[in-house]
């Protein structure tokens, strides 16, 4: 596997970065949504909500960059993948509608707050499940004819895509629990520690199940992962995963506050790198490569100038915003 740093490859990394930023940032927002019913009505729920209220909107914007960037840099991939994944994409969008408005609506309407809390959780679970199914459907391959999707409208639904869907729900819940450990104290934090242990074990099982199933999907993943000599390179990913998992468990038992979240980010990064190894250089496995789907050079150069200037700026002011809202959140909170 050789990587040449041409424009299409650079854009593949930019899109991958946007998707990764979305997954880990909105991942903890959605994770808190997923875990929301386990928190006590009142103080605990308000505290959990306030831990993400000032930042969720910025986190979600990475999803728009991932989607918009895909359309701009790899229009063919965007045009194939979205019709292929029509039902889960629509479900994700509707889930995000409920999740997003719940932030404001639950404060505006105490009488219907139980309903908006339910919408917050149902929307978060739907969005996470749909994103996981999208990942699985992409990995298992999409049928293409000419420049269009050529499969049926339920092709995405397989045991494997359901497995990846559930795995993402569990993984987001782990991120959410770890974020709450860092951002809360008292009873809410104690509850978050318990949730992180459960979600940690469940996530480990999920990662192992997906890793075990992936090489046996069609599309040459087996060769990429399990044949000599690539296995020597590929084996580093599970090895590092094991080391980080052990460190995560230690940090959890030692009641470290910030470390579990940071280590979870590391675990996500390794899983993401593993997915990259599986997919590269395809943007729509098994048939469309990043070069086939790439927009013309002048479009990619024009956008790269913008991305090169704006993404560092975005990271800087987003970082500043996180800094402003650093520390533990109260339950009286921002509202």
């Amino acid at each position: 596997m050789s990587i040449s740093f041409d424009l299409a490859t650079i854009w593949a990394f930019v899109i991958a970065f946007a998707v990764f930023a979305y997954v880990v940032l909105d991942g903890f927002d959605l994770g808190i949504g997923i875990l929301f019913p386990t928190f006590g009505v009142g103080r605990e729920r308000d505290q959990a909500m306030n831990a993400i209220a000032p930042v969720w909107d910025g986190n979600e914007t990475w999803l728009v960059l991932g989607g918009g960037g895909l359309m701009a840099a790899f229009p063919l991939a965007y045009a194939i993948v979205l019709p292929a994944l029509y039902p889960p994409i629509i479900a994700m969008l509707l889930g995000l509608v409920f999740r997003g408005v719940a932030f404001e609506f639950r404060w505006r309407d105490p009488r219907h707050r139980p309903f908006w809390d339910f919408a917050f959780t149902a929307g978060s679970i739907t969005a996470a499940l749909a994103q996981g199914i999208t990942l699985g459907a992409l990995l298992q391959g999409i049928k293409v004819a000419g420049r269009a999707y050529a499969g049926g409208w339920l092709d995405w639904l397989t045991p494997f895509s359901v497995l990846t869907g559930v795995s993402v729900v569990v993984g987001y819940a782990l991120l959410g629990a770890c974020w709450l450990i860092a951002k809360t104290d008292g009873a809410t934090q104690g509850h978050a520690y318990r949730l992180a242990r459960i979600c940690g074990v469940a996530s480990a099982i999920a990662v192992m199940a997906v890793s075990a199933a992936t090489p046996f999907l069609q599309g040459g993943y087996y060769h990429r992962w399990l044949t000599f000599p690539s296995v020597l390179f590929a084996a580093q990913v599970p090895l590092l995963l094991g080391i980080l998992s052990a460190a995560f468990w230690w940090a959890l038992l030692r009641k470290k506050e910030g470390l579990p979240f940071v280590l979870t980010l590391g675990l996500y990064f390794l899983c993401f790198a593993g997915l990259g190894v599986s997919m590269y250089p395809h943007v729509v496995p098994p048939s469309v490569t990043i070069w086939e789907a790439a927009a013309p050079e002048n479009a990619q150069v024009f956008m790269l100038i913008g991305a090169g200037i704006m993404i560092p700026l975005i990271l800087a002011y987003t970082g500043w915003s996180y800094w402003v809202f650093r520390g533990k959140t109260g339950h009286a909170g921002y509202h």
Partner: protein
Amino acid sequence: MFGGLDPILLARWQFAFTVSFHFIFPSFSIGLASYLAVLEGLWLKTGKQLYIDLFRFWLKIFAVAFAMGVVSGIVMSYQFGTNWSVFSDKTGPVIGPLMAYEVLTAFFLEAGFLGVMLFGMEKVGKELHFAATCLVAVGTCISAFWILSANSWMQTPVGYAINTHGQFVNAGSWATIVFNPSFPYRLVHTVIAAYLTTSLVVGATSAWHLLRNSSDARARKGFSMAMWMAALVAPVQIAAGDQQGLNTLEHQPAKVLAMEGDFDPSPHGAPLVLFGLPSNAEGRVKYKVEIPKAGSLILKHDPNAPLPGLKDFPREDWPTVPIVFWSFRIMVGLGFAIFGLGLWSLLARWRRRLYDWRWLHRAAIVMGPAGFVAVIAGWVTTEAGRQPWTVYGLLRTTQSASPLAAPAVGASLLAFVAVYFAVFGFGVWYILKLMAKGPQPHESDPADAPIRTAGIVPGPAQGAPGSGA
């Protein structure tokens, strides 16, 4: 259940529904963000409690409207791919970068500083907070810049070549594409529309409270500011609309002829059709009431100038005339009504009756939603008028859609309709409840609301001034 329906028609309905619903929120939040920046700036300059009360009041409404704009906007960014994948493949290399720039320069800016704007006053101090408010306001305008550029390129495509895959690609400079011929006109018209829409909402809310208590200082200030806006900006908007009409006549004549209801060519000057029932099938306007030569006077600034008719164009290139004809009249009629309200407020000011002329206040309340209706009617005019093309004159709508079956598009359309009416119905109700309560003396900052943990303090619905943002 959708077996007999055309999936492309369903996809068009889905786009029309989701984009119309979506645009209600930005057309309000673009104006409101700027209004908030003005209010906070006045507060910093004068130190008057009045301004910060108004600021905090409208900030709570902004938070609800903005959240609805965000979630309905994400749907739009994916809808190009779900229902219009061929369009995305073919135009992605040209309009994709414009939308990517919108995300990079506008969406992140708005989202990044919104948190500080809503919750950060205590944490960052007045000056930095004001900077955050200004950046959110600037972000809304940058967003309008890019999305209007992309939409305008679809109306007046320039600077492209078509490659071997049938994709539109940039043939020269990005500046040519970004600043395509209709873009400046459409940007100005849209942003002014957003400001007017917001001023009418502020005016109606203030008028509602003036009817109850004409000495309410916050309602007086809000009403006065809103009526200045309507009086001064509505005529500018009418002029901007006229200029856009001339631009459209130059680049999209069939659209203007549909707006005017001119099926037949008028070699000696076109009439202005005021009302009537246009029919594509019959190729005429039934029962029409018209002013001779006035159409040419408006469009050519010369009563005897010849104008073509739709019949000069192939029938398969006609838009659906009744939609364009009527939506255009709704927009123009409301535009003049807004101008009339502005003039009435000037008369009231001159007679020193701005705050106690009850019929003026009632009229302002009736006109509260007029901006939204005019904005949607205007978009219907320009988008339905672009038909039957997605890229004007180059790519037909029928050749732009995804390879989809009617049940998939129909089911998702039903889901969007159900969810949008339910969710945004609640949202609009919450905004109306906030408006009905009105700005209070010493309006609370969203950030230092009293503890309102449901289990401990029984939640006063909208009772206490501090019940949140």
